[in-house]
């Protein structure tokens, strides 16, 4: 086993050497090409990752536009592209990234147990989570919105009009907690499932009156079936999506924030967005202010 591993290193080393021979091509905008020869101060997380030659990323496998693992067997979406951008700047090529499914319940344990190097999984930054993990980014700000049947037969105009109606969301998600805590929906008014696609189907056959979650997800459903659904288009929350990393890795956090900033400057952020979530959301967002790594 050991000898096999060594053998497999030979082509990788050759590749790194040949890339290095080309000279550092800083203008390369292709997000999939790793930086030829990044150098990091010894002992930093970045140097460790470069030395290990691989990156493990937790992402969602069931989130359209952000992290969706389809028939290709590889997760696709904006979260995945962001992870690739960061990997590239760490000198890790795409095929050396291992994507691990991170559902909402295992994101913190994965980071605490260092099973993953980072989590990019529509991971809303909040104080409680920030106590036990660190957040780089945010790289995107979503807003909670409401999806209703075409023509809005129940006359829903905003979250305060959801009382007495049936609203669907995903169990254990922030949007569900928001309508429950802020807008006082009871458990008989708020119906929860494990995946938004079930909410969509229940809305389509009239078993629920509304679906609520981040606008980006709902937009995807409208684009799939514009004759069935419509989006209110009035976001009532801010969900800053951050990149979760294990606690106490401030330099790594700063590094990621710089990668994001550079990616905006060289256009790779926009390219990544347009190839994924941008298919549904027309305007490319501007990069939000960093959350701050020293928290």
């Amino acid at each position, binding site marked *: 086993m050991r000898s096999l591993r060594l053998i497999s290193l030979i082509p990788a080393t050759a590749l790194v050497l040949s890339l290095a021979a080309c000279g550092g091509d800083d203008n390369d905008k292709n997000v999939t090409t790793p930086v030829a020869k990044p150098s990091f101060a010894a002992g930093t997380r970045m140097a460790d990752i470069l030395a290990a030659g691989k990156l493990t990323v937790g992402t969602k496998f069931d989130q359209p536009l952000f992290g969706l693992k389809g028939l290709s067997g590889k997760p696709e979406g904006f979260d995945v592209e962001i992870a690739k951008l960061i990997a590239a700047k760490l000198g890790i090529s795409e095929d050396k990234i291992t994507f691990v499914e991170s559902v909402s319940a295992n994101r913190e344990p994965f980071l605490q147990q260092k099973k993953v190097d980072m989590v990019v999984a529509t991971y809303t930054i909040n104080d*409680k989570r920030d*106590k036990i993990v660190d957040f780089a980014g945010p790289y995107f700000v979503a807003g909670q919105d409401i999806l209703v049947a075409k023509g809005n037969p129940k006359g829903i105009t905003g979250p305060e009009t959801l009382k007495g109606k049936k609203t*669907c969301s995903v169990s*254990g998600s922030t949007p569900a*907690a928001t309508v429950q805590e802020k807008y006082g929906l009871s458990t008989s008014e708020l119906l*929860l499932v*494990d995946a938004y696609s079930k909410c969509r189907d229940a809305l389509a056959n009239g078993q629920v009156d509304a679906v609520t979650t981040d606008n980006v997800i709902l937009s995807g459903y409208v684009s799939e079936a514009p004759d069935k659904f419509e989006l209110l288009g009035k976001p009532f929350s801010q969900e800053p999506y951050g990149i979760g990393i294990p606690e106490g890795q401030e330099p790594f956090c700063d590094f990621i924030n710089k990668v994001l900033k550079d990616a905006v400057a060289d256009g790779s952020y926009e390219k990544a967005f347009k190839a994924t979530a941008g298919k549904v959301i027309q305007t490319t967002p501007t990069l939000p202010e960093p959350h701050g790594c020293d928290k």
Partner: protein
Amino acid sequence: MNDVLDNLDVFVKGFRTTVSLTLLAAIGALLLGTLIATMRVSPVPPLRWAGAAYVRLVRNTPLTVVFFLVVFGLPEVDVKLPFFRFAVLALSIYTASFVAEAVRSGINSVPPGQAEASRSIGMTFGQTLRLVVLPQAFANIVPPLASVFIALLKNTSIASAFFVFEGVQSMNQLINAHGNAVLSIIAAAALGYLVLALVSAFLFSLLERAVSAGR
């Protein structure tokens, strides 16, 4: 741990639904399962075939698929019920196949002489079953039924994925609100199921003692 104790009310609310799902589905499964077992031992061949087909079909279908068919299939034919009732229905349909097999084994364990004696004194098939065979059959199958119903208790967690706020959904809700205490919340939910299962096992052991004392 504090995050669990502070939110005990959320857990209690969720697990209350778990208990009512279990109780209602247990009643449904017991009635339906006994009916199917009766069909399987009846003298009418088509009834026997139908009973056997039910067990084969339902017992070999994953519960999640049964849920999908009930929750998303029935509305297609305009059967629209509240989701809690859909969940009770799906769980009853599924568990009935296991109850039917347990009841059938109980019926088979009653010596044939019992049924023959009842028939010889002029009882009908229904009377034989109701007054002679089933009471003895049920006394014999308390332990396997206990296993079936404890499995049912845990199976109610599938309803969490189908619009019902029960134990697992209360866990999910707390996990989202307390990202700093995920493992203790999961452990608390596991403990919740364990306690309920142990309580049901205890009640069944009382029942077992009662029926054996009656003999």
